[in-house]
C-alpha cells in the first residue's frame, strides 16, 4: 500500500496546445457564425413576410373594416361598400369549425388511443392504419368536398330523408348543410388530430402504465386516469392545428354546405351557411368591378385571419389550464 505523492522534482508534462486564441479567422468558427446568422435571417424573413401580408390587408381593407361591417350583413348588398356586412359569414365559419371540432376530437382521440395503447408501434395493423392516415392527409381538399357531397349529402342525407320523411317530401337531410360540411371537414382534419394525439400518448413512458397496472388498475382506468390527462396538452395541440387548417378551407364546404347568399343566420345543423373564405372567393369572381369591392375583399380576408387567430387563442388558453388539472380528483 504505497502512497502516491507528486514528485516535486519532475514537472508536469508541457501542454502541447496553446490556450491563447490564434490571430486571424478560425475557419470552423467563422462558418458557425455565418450559419447562426443565416438562421436568424430566415426567421426574420418569415416574420417580415407575415407582417407584410397582414399590413397589406389592414391597409387595403381599412376603409371598410369597422364595427358595423362586423356586426351586420344579413340584409345588405354584399357588393356595396357602404352596406356590406360579414356577420353571417363570421357566424357560419365559427359554427362549422366548432361542429367539426365536436366530431373530430373524439374520433381522433379514440383512433389514436387504439393505435397508441392497443397496438405495437411497428405492428402490421398499426402501420396499415398509420399509412391510411398519412394518405388521407395528402388528399386534395376538393376531393374531400366531392366525397362529402357524395357520401354525407347524397347517401347519408338521402337515406335519412327516406327513413324519416317519405317520397315527395321536401328533403331535409339530403341537401348541403352545416352538419355535412362540418363532418366533411372533420374527415379532412382527422389525420392531424390522430397524429398529434398518438405522438403524445406514445411519449408517455411505459413506467407510468406499469405503476398503474401494478396497483390493480384495468386498462380503461389507466387510460382515463393516467394516459389521457398527461396526453391532453398534445391532444389539444392537435385540435388547435385542426382548427387552424379547417377555418381557411373552402373546397370541402363548396358542395356540402356553403351558400352564396342567405337571408338569415343559420339556426340549425340542417341549415346552409355563409362562409368567410367562400365569400372572399365570391367577391373576387362574381363582382362587376374588382376595384369597387377590393376593400371589402381584403377586409373579409382580414376578418378570417383574425377569427382563426381568435379561435386558436381560445384553444391555447384552454390548453394552458392543464397543469393545474392534476390536483383535481379523477
Amino acid at each position, binding site marked *: 500500500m504505497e502512497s502516491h505523492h507528486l514528485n516535486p522534482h519532475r514537472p508536469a508534462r508541457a501542454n502541447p496546445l496553446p490556450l491563447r486564441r490564434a490571430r486571424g479567422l478560425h475557419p470552423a468558427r467563422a462558418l458557425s457564425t455565418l450559419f447562426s446568422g443565416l438562421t436568424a435571417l430566415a426567421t426574420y424573413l418569415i416574420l417580415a413576410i407575415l407582417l407584410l401580408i397582414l399590413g397589406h390587408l389592414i391597409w387595403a381593407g381599412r376603409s371598410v373594416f369597422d364595427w358595423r361591417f362586423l356586426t351586420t350583413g344579413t340584409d345588405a348588398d354584399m357588393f356595396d361598400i357602404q352596406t356590406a356586412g360579414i356577420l353571417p359569414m363570421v357566424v357560419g365559419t365559427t359554427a362549422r369549425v366548432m361542429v367539426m371540432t365536436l366530431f373530430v376530437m373524439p374520433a381522433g382521440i379514440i383512433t389514436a388511443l387504439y393505435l397508441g395503447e392497443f397496438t405495437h408501434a411497428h405492428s402490421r395493423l398499426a402501420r396499415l392504419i398509420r399509412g391510411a392516415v398519412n394518405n388521407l392527409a395528402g388528399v386534395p381538399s376538393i376531393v374531400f368536398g366531392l366525397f362529402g357531397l357524395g357520401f354525407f349529402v347524397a347517401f347519408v342525407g338521402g337515406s335519412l330523408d327516406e327513413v324519416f320523411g317519405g317520397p315527395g317530401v321536401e328533403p331535409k337531410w339530403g341537401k348541403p348543410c352545416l352538419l355535412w360540411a362540418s363532418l366533411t371537414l372533420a374527415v379532412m382534419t382527422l389525420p392531424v388530430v390522430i397524429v398529434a394525439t398518438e405522438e403524445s400518448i406514445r411519449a408517455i413512458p411505459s*413506467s*407510468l402504465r406499469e405503476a398503474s397496472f401494478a*396497483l390493480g388498475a384495468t386498462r380503461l382506468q389507466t387510460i382515463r386516469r393516467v394516459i389521457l390527462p398527461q396526453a391532453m396538452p398534445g391532444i389539444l395541440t392537435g385540435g388547435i392545428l385542426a382548427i387552424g387548417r379547417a377555418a381557411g378551407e373552402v373546397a370541402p364546404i363548396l358542395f356540402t354546405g356553403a351558400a352564396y347568399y342567405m337571408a338569415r343566420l343559420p339556426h340549425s345543423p340542417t341549415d346552409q351557411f355563409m362562409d368567410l373564405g367562400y365569400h372572399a372567393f365570391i367577391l373576387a369572381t362574381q363582382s362587376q368591378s374588382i376595384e369597387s369591392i377590393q376593400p371589402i375583399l381584403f377586409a373579409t380576408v382580414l376578418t378570417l385571419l383574425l377569427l382563426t387567430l381568435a379561435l386558436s387563442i381560445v384553444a391555447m388558453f384552454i390548453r394552458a389550464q392543464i397543469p393545474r388539472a392534476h390536483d383535481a380528483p379523477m
Partner: protein
Amino acid sequence: METSSPILPQATTSRPDGPTALIQARNVSVRFGTTQALRKVSLDLAERHVTAFIGPSGCGKSTLLRCFNRMNELIDISFTEGTIHLADTEIHHPDVDVIELRKRVGMVFQKSNPFPKSIYENVAYGLRLHGTRDRKILNEIVESSLRSAALWDEVKDRLHESALGLSGGQQQRLCIARAIAIRPQVILMDEPASALDPTATMRIEELVLDLRKDYTIVIVTHNMHQATRISDYTAFFYQGELIEFDATSRIFANPAKKQTEDYVTGRFG
C-alpha cells in the same frame, strides 16, 4: 389446491415465531419468445420476512419477482409454467382476478415512477381505483401511508404540490407509500435503491426493516451487502436457475455451493 410442504430453510433470526410460507413457487419456468429466462424454480417466501434475490445481470431474479403479481403477462411473448400459490390459491387459476391479486401483491420499481399528479393524489390513486371516495378516509390512509414510508414530515405541508418536485429518494418513498396505501400482503421491490445516493439508500433500507413487521417483502438487489443488511433469507440465481436458497447469514458467511461462494466473494459475476 393443496400446497406442497414448505421449502423454507431454518431461520437464524432472533424472531421467536417460526416462519410460515406465504407464497410457494414450484417449478416456475418463464420464457420470452425463444429465450428461457427461468428454469424450474421452486422456493417459498416467508410471511413477514424479507427475502432477497441476488445474482448477476440477466439471471432471472427480476423475472421471478414479476411472476408473483403476474406483471410478466403485460409482455406479449411471455410464457409461464409451474405453479405459484398465494396462501392456498394458485394465482394463475382462471377464477383468479388479476386485479385482486395485484391489490394483495404490490410492487415498487427500480426507477421511481410517481404519476405527474400531486403527492396526495399519487398515494390516493390506488384507493380511488378500488372505489374509495370518502374524503376523510382518504385523508387518513394517505397520512398513515406517508408516515409508514417515513415521508410524512417532509411533505405534510405540500401534499397538493406535484410529486415530480420531490428528490429521487423522496419519490421512491412516495412510490412505497403509494403501494402500501392499498394495504397489500406482499411488497415486491425491484432494486428500489439502485438509482439513489447512499444516504437515500440507507433510508430505504431502514424503511424495509420497519415494514417487515407488517408486510412480506421480496427485494431484488445487485448489491450483496444490502442483502446482508436487510434480508432474512437470500436466494442466489444464475442464468435462470436457483442455485442456492438459505438464511442470509448462512449464504454470506458459509455458502454451501461453490458457485454461490464464488459470486459472493466476487470471484465472478
